[in-house]
């Protein structure tokens, strides 16, 4: 056991630090709390372009495409170092983490040459068009139709929970090309220009008032067959590859849903009837609960990084992180507001402790328990993929999709 960098890692970290020290000042000088989304997106485009010049924007890509053939450990080191600065929120997460590696694997050389540079210049943002109203946990249940007409595909249907669709220039899309095949077998994968006629994007307001997600409607949208990724009816396989890229990207950073420091600071600032909250054993118990999750997942992450740096791919056991954090975050937010008494209802950042972070957490926690895999799906994953328990009884896998109830 050794927490230090290897000599190579230390050298790489030194390079990253030097580069960041020279290149971040103009980006971290802004007040992001008061900036409009448009301003932040614009800044983010410039920041991606700057990173791309040095190969940091899409580090794992080959050098030919603007990356640096980085190892997973190098990605982690860069992420750790970048996290020391306050920088524009990453509007390119899906673009760089999911769309780009998928294109790189499945798109033609022409498209790669035409499209990847415009991502790395900060010009193009991509979105991922997977989820549908009837296809969340059960993604393969999607109903958006893709029908072949000559050398084009005609798309009709609806996607939902599409992060950043309102900003996106392009999207990756899975649709059902053959409803007579079983549900996982009749899907085909495409990419499309989001400005194509027939694409309509409507924002979804969340219960906390935020609107990061969208519904996307397709009415006779036409996609050339050349924009198909993978073979016809092999879309499920391609989609699984994309999700694997997502998991890799996620493995390199912690979720950070519970901020133990926020909780600790809040507790230290509160006096209860019997004295300071920190001397209250019930408060101590809850603090311990959250410390164990946050600190434990940090160490769990170190174990996964060690595996990653030894060349082992990130496995399904990482599901436990979100499971524990999401449940913990909801309990933590509830208790933190409880500690404030009636004032706990106030979410005004100027009045509430830690700028209303705990009230925001109350409102965001339910979404976190759902997005990216519900508690229930995560437990299924752990039980089936890690512990080897048998899958759910189901009768929809072999049936033709159009014969499922």
């Amino acid at each position, binding site marked *: 056991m050794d927490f230090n960098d290897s000599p190579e890692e230390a050298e790489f970290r030194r390079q990253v630090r030097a580069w960041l020290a020279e290149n971040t000042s103009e980006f971290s000088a802004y007040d992001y709390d008061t900036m409009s989304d448009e301003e932040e997106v614009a800044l983010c485009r410039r920041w991606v372009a700057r990173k791309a010049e040095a190969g940091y924007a899409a580090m794992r890509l080959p050098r030919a495409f603007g990356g640096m053939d980085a190892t997973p450990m190098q990605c982690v080191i860069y992420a750790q170092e970048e996290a020391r600065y306050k920088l524009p929120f990453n509007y390119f997460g899906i673009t760089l983490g999911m769309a780009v590696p998928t294109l790189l694997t499945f798109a033609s050389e022409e498209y790669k040459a035409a499209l990847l540079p415009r991502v790395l210049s900060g010009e193009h943002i991509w979105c991922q068009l997977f989820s549908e109203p009837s296809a969340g946990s059960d993604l393969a249940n999607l109903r958006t139709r893709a029908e072949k007409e000559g050398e084009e595909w005609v798309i009709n249907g609806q996607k939902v929970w599409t992060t950043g669709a309102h900003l996106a220039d392009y999207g990756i899309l899975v649709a059902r090309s053959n409803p007579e095949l079983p549900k996982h077998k009749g899907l085909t994968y495409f990419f499309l220009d989001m400005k194509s006629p027939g694409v309509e994007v409507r924002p979804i307001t969340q219960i906390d008032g935020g609107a990061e997600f969208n519904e996307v409607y397709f009415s006779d949208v036409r996609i050339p067959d050349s924009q198909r990724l993978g073979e016809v009816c092999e879309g499920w396989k391609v989609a699984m590859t994309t999700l694997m890229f997502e998991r890799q990207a996620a493995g390199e950073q912690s979720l950070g849903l519970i901020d133990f420091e926020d909780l600790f600071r809040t507790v230290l600032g509160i*006096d209860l009837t019997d004295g300071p909250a920190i001397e209250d054993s019930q408060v101590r118990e809850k603090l311990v609960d959250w410390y164990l999750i946050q600190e434990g997942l940090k160490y769990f992450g170190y174990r996964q990084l060690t595996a990653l740096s030894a060349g082992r791919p990130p496995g399904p056991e990482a599901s436990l992180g979100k499971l524990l954090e999401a449940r913990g975050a*909801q309990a933590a937010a509830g208790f933190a507001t409880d500690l404030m008494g009636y004032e706990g*209802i106030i979410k005004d950042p100027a009045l509430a402790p830690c700028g209303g972070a705990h009230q925001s957490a109350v409102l965001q926690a*339910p979404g976190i328990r759902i997005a990216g895999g519900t508690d229930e799906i995560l437990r299924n994953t752990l039980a089936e993929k890690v512990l080897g328990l048998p899958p759910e009884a189901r009768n929809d896998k072999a049936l033709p999709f159009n014969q499922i109830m």
Partner: protein
Amino acid sequence: MNFEFSQEQILLQEEIRRQISGACPLERVMKVMDGDTTERLKIWREFAELGYQATAMPEDLGGYGLGYLELCLLAQELGRHVVPIPMISSIYLASEALLLHGSEAQKEKYLPLIVSGERVASLAWSEPGRRVANGNIATRFADGMLSGEKLPVADADIADLFVVLAQSEGQSRFCLVDGSDSTLATEHLAVIDEAWPHARLQMSGTPAELLPVNEVDVDEVFYRAAVLVAFEQIGGAQACLRSAIDYAQERVVFGRSIASFQAIKHKLADVYAATELALSHAYYASWALQQNDKSLRRAAAGARIAATRAYELASAELIQVHGGMGYTWESHCHLFYKRSRMLALALDSEPTWQRRLVEQLCMQKEEAA
């Protein structure tokens, strides 16, 4: 032994349920949540015509003189429909404070107007930094005037009468303040539930009248309100359970209704168990409230905590069962989830009620010894 509401009471409750479903469906609550500032007062006045505010008020003060049992059942229905009117502020708290502590003249002057829906009252008790919970009240009454800051104060946007908890000559006392007084400054606060506005209330030399000293302490009103709020919470929890069941039956994943998965079934069984446990405590507390039984404070604290836990669980799992759709603004789920957290905090939070309950248990033990 008859631990059940009477047939008449149950029929009354069913009638109220039908009325509210018609008069204030969830779409109307959504309008309030979307920022319609006039809707709440409208519903308040419509409900006054239906006589809801009059339920437990004595007849000589303009009420129907039914009992607290009936008021509890009304509260359950209000909770079931997350009705966004100042019932807690005006009826369970301010009116109760007046009934418990007010002079005859004060009661006669104000209560009939609250009952008729003409006035909206609110109890302003909390102060910044948990001062009140820590046993000291900074707001002071002297020479007929109040000075201090109250935060948060419920429904201050529509209230025109405030019952203010203050300190006067070293004693905790309630004072009456007219909402239109020019020395009163109210400032809207952003809170968790957009359908239940709260404000900061600042008083400086605000004219006020004291309620007379009374044999019960000022806490009494919180115990009494806790019983009524518990019924609102349980009504909310029951609505969540019903909605979660309906949605689960309908929603299909992996070729099966999600209601057939144990993960969902067992979750809902736990919600059911928590709700029934809370309801059992609340039944007893409603009896103790109606009888003014000496176990009232213990019963109220038990019902308060059990109901808070049930609603928190039921409303969180309501969203979880609905999945992504349940996390959208258009879904009704957040009406319940936000209201649940607000109600959990509005009479002060669970740790305070845990301390109160254990105090009551210790007192009971000492009396038995």
